């Protein structure tokens, strides 16, 4: 295949490469041994390279559309990459690399299928970020969910199995709703291509309008369950706290898929002003509620992983608030906030995992005075860095993201409520994290029992490198805050306008084959 034709296939690569690698790794099975981890990491780096290439090609505002199977736009399945999708691809690849690095310590030995499952999960994530087809979005949701079910219970224990049953049941219910909503939209509008849906929702006749609105709200419920939004998000903490730490770190990106879907479908399919007056205030209310509830629940958390899980739920609330405000500036702020929140939460999950190993199974990461963990200075430093970043204190990425998001909601009518809840939640998390830190590190008992967990440096080399990667990614956000803020502001305008996305998908022409002229009259008749 020539380089130019490979470049044309670029939007498909982040899905195809991990799928093929996953199949290969599955075939290798136990025979792969340590080689499987190396292979998996190499593939993940290749996916990251693809994601970065897509991000640079879309950085000037281009929307790349890709017609799977060369079918013209509304009939086949289209993929599309704009700045938002490309950002999410890069974030997903980075978190997957961190997850693979951290799994080397312990998880990969206990679960030989881990690298394959990780690849399938990444394929599903990337597909969900890339697709421009509503039913295809459902399929990719299922791909990433089924991989996540297996990852969640990869260390079988009473807690993880119980959390697994809840998680699978809740998500199956959400999928049923999603499917019904997609079918309803197809039944009314006759298409599933999101760009095509967008041009039809605006002009839907009055009698069919309630059906389209009902489908939109059903989609909101389905995506809200996946994003852990307020009344539907209580499955999240028990699931994330029961998952092995590297998997919990990977799951930090999972709620972001629901948020991505809400932002994408909300601005594209329901971007018409007549829907926004329902959707906007609803999302703002859900976002504020989720954030406030997560902050209070975080205060009540009794171990670090549960606290980190509530912080993930809170970050979902923040993004929902910004999507609900729906101006180009607030959408840009949401996009700036998303990568930071993902990296910080994933790093905090990994630190909690290291801490639990160092303190031994008796105390784990519970907020109880236990033995002083081995390598307490190193762990303490990592904890402080991750805690400050997640709580949004300077000089870390959370502070920049929070400043941008607070600025973006000024003068939007929800300023007072948004500032109050966002800043209040930050305060609650600072309190919760300070209390956690002092219980875990300062109130530790005699050093004589320190040997419980063994050396962190040897047992957690992989996790340490993963945390270093995530912290470095967060630091990059701070260093490049100016250019990134401008980039995401442009991305926010692109998402709010959505015209370029629509045009790119619908006007993308199938590739013409120069050879073999088609005999006249042999084209199949197209209906619809």
């Amino acid at each position, binding site marked *: 295949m020539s380089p130019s034709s490979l470049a044309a296939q670029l939007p498909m690569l982040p899905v195809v490469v991990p799928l093929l690698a996953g199949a290969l790794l599955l075939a290798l099975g136990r025979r792969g041994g340590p080689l499987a981890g190396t292979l998996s990491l190499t593939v993940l780096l290749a996916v990251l390279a693809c994601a970065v290439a897509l991000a640079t090609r879309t950085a000037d505002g281009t929307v790349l559309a890709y017609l799977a199977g060369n079918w013209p736009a509304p009939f086949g399945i289209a993929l599309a990459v704009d700045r938002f999708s490309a950002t999410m691809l890069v974030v997903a690849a980075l978190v997957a690399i961190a997850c693979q690095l951290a799994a080397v310590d312990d998880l990969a030995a206990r679960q030989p299928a881990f690298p394959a499952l990780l690849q399938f999960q990444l394929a599903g994530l990337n597909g969900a970020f890339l697709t421009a087809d509503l039913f295809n979005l459902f399929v990719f949701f299922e791909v990433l969910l089924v991989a996540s079910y297996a990852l969640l219970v990869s260390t079988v224990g009473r807690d993880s199995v119980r959390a697994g049953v809840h998680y699978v049941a809740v998500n199956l*219910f959400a999928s049923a709703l999603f*499917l019904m909503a997609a079918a309803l939209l197809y039944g009314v509008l006759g298409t599933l291509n999101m760009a095509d849906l967008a041009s039809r929702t605006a002009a839907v006749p009055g009698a069919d309008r309630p059906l389209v609105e009902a489908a939109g709200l059903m989609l909101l419920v389905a995506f809200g369950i996946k994003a852990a939004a307020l009344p539907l998000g209580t499955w999240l903490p028990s699931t994330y706290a029961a998952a092995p730490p590297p998997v919990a770190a990977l799951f930090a990106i999972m709620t972001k898929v629901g948020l991505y879907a809400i932002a994408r479908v909300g601005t594209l399919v329901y971007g018409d002003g007549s829907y926004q007056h329902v959707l906007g205030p609803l999302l703002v209310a859900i976002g504020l509620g989720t954030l406030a509830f997560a902050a209070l629940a975080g205060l009540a958390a009794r171990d670090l992983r549960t606290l980190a899980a509530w912080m993930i739920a809170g970050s979902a609330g923040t993004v929902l608030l910004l999507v609900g405000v729906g101006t180009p500036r607030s959408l840009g702020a949401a996009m700036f906030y998303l990568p930071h929140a993902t990296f910080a939460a994933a790093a905090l999950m990994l630190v909690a995992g290291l801490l639990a190993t160092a303190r031994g199974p008796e105390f784990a990461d519970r907020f109880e005075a236990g033995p002083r963990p081995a390598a307490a200075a190193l762990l303490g430093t990592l904890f402080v860095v991750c805690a400050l970043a997640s709580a949004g204190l300077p000089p870390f990425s959370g502070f920049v993201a929070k400043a941008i998001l607070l600025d973006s909601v000024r003068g939007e009518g929800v300023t007072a409520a948004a500032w109050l809840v966002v800043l209040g939640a930050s305060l609650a998390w600072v309190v919760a994290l300070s209390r956690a830190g002092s219980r875990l590190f300062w109130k530790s008992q005699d050093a004589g029992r320190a040997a419980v967990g063994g050396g962190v440096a040897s047992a957690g080399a992989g996790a340490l490198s993963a945390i270093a990667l995530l912290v470095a990614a967060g630091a990059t956000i701070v260093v490049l805050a100016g250019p990134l803020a401008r980039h995401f502001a442009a991305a926010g305008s692109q998402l709010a306008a959505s015209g370029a996305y629509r045009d790119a998908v619908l006007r993308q022409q199938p590739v013409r084959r120069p050879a073999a002229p088609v005999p006249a009259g042999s084209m199949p008749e197209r209906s619809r």
Partner: protein
Amino acid sequence: MELLLASGIGLLAAAGTWLVLRARTFDVVLGMTLLSYAVNLFVFAMGRLRVDAVPLLRDPALTPSLANHADPVPQALVLTAIVISFGMTAVLLALAVRSHLEHDDDHVDGSPR
């Protein structure tokens, strides 16, 4: 036929929802199965109810509208949905059995205490 199909879907969805809300994993699995039946039928019905209509028009004299043919897209969608819900039910069943073994109880919270 519309009434029969609509009430059938409604009955399946209602029974499924009731079972899903029960506290035993076996009931939840059954409920999910019934719900997925309801969803599959619903997806199928979104292509409109037509009897004896061809999915692809070969006769150039007929106008290509839904009055003259059956919509093949929901049929393809429902096929995908059936496969996915079948696989997902298998996953849920495996987890439910595992949970029963771990806890020696089929309560959805492990043990009801």
